[in-house]
């Protein structure tokens, strides 16, 4: 169910400012900044001008972001486990 659809004729359409899509892309940029820093994330983001670029951006970023999310979850779970067991709590 996680398949990303194949190329779409609308991929050439320009992105519209103030659209939901642009706003969602900014959320991904925020996450990307946390991984690679502002300058690199900003450079990559500024290369997006069409729906096709947006799609490629998501396809490129999502695996990295989900991997990092899993790492954060592991840390959170370890911390919660320590809290429940009364063991010393490692920094978040």
């Amino acid at each position: 169910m996680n398949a990303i659809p194949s190329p779409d004729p609308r991929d050439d359409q320009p992105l519209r400012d103030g659209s939901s899509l642009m706003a969602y892309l900014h959320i991904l940029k925020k996450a990307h900044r946390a991984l690679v820093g502002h300058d690199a994330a900003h450079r990559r983001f500024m290369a997006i001008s069409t729906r096709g670029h947006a799609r490629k951006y998501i396809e490129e970023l999502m695996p990295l972001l989900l991997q990092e999310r899993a790492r954060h979850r592991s840390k959170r779970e370890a911390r919660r486990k320590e809290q429940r067991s009364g063991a010393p709590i490692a920094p978040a």
Partner: protein
Amino acid sequence: MSAGQYNIQHVFVLMLENRSFDHLFALSGISGITAATSSCSNACNGATYTFCGGAPAQMPSDPGHEFTDVLEQLCGAGATYQKGQAYPSADNSGFVSNYASSKSEGTPPQPAEIGAIMCGVDTRAQAPNLYQLATEFVLCDGWHSSLPGPTWPNRYFLHGASSAGLDHSPTSAEMSEWEVVDGFDYPNGSIFDALGADHYRLYQDELGSALGRVPQVASIKGVSFFDIDDLSHFENDLKSGYTARYTFIEPGYGDIVHGTYAGGSSQHPMDGLEGGDQLAARVYNAIRNSPLWENSLLVILYDEHGGFYDSVKPGRATPPNDGATGSLNTNGFGFDVYGVRVPAIVVSPWVARGCIDHTLYDHSSVLATLARLFKLKPLTDRDRHANDLLPLLTDTCRTDCPQRIGA
């Protein structure tokens, strides 16, 4: 204090997308609801469109719901809003004319298709899990979106009883400015700030299109994309050691790139009802079969009406009065009127079976409920004055709640 109020330790919220109350429930056959009838109509280009059944599974085009769209929907074609003036009188007469002409969400539909905005769904057939939850627990028919505008500011109201003045979908320039402080910033903080990191959890449905796995809540300052867990963990997380007082769950948004929202679970009008209906069942079943069930309250609601017709006029609302600057307030809206009515279902073993609740709510009612349950301070004047859900809680823990729903 009722026994129910004493026992609720975990509040869960699942917020879906873009459906009005009448669109989803007017034709449900559920008795006692305040709902549209065939006497409700909109006129457009000399034709009259009455409220009726037969809503398509997917809308032919995405109905507009930006501030100026909702102004027309509520106040009629040609309505204008003057900054600093009262919101015009609503008569809910402009839903068809707006659907016929608005380009906010793309190309308008063909003329023959514009009446679809006045159509209600067959709830029992098209959203059977939501129908079952509505009839087994409490269906609210007085819940309004927090402002007559789009997704983003309405979702911000759920998270902070304010949108910091935002009355439109944010622009790229606005979001770039938020980067300076690492996200959308509430003058008084969000509910997540108020609760503290160990007392809330965030999930997003991981099924469906990978393009839509972008949680809107991660746009807020203090919330990271990496703080959100896949919903695949939810059932197991609930089994032991779950201490979060508040859990917020987002659907998958489907194909956001091409605007079809296909493969999502948000119930976006372009995608249909099935994914979100299954998601509601998945969330219910996980909580129902967890050790937390007898200490739980689940609210299923919708961010805004998505352009669909509703027959109830929104009333006056309390502005947040949180000192937000006017920089995001493009339309000059005073946040003194609610948005269009949306569906809301309250699920708990501590609520009465098949109850219809006519109380006036908006998204800040979730925050008011959390504040009064867990002794938190209100975030703004909006949640300070909002009705909460606590009167729905009874002294009896029901034993007749369905063990599982859905396929």
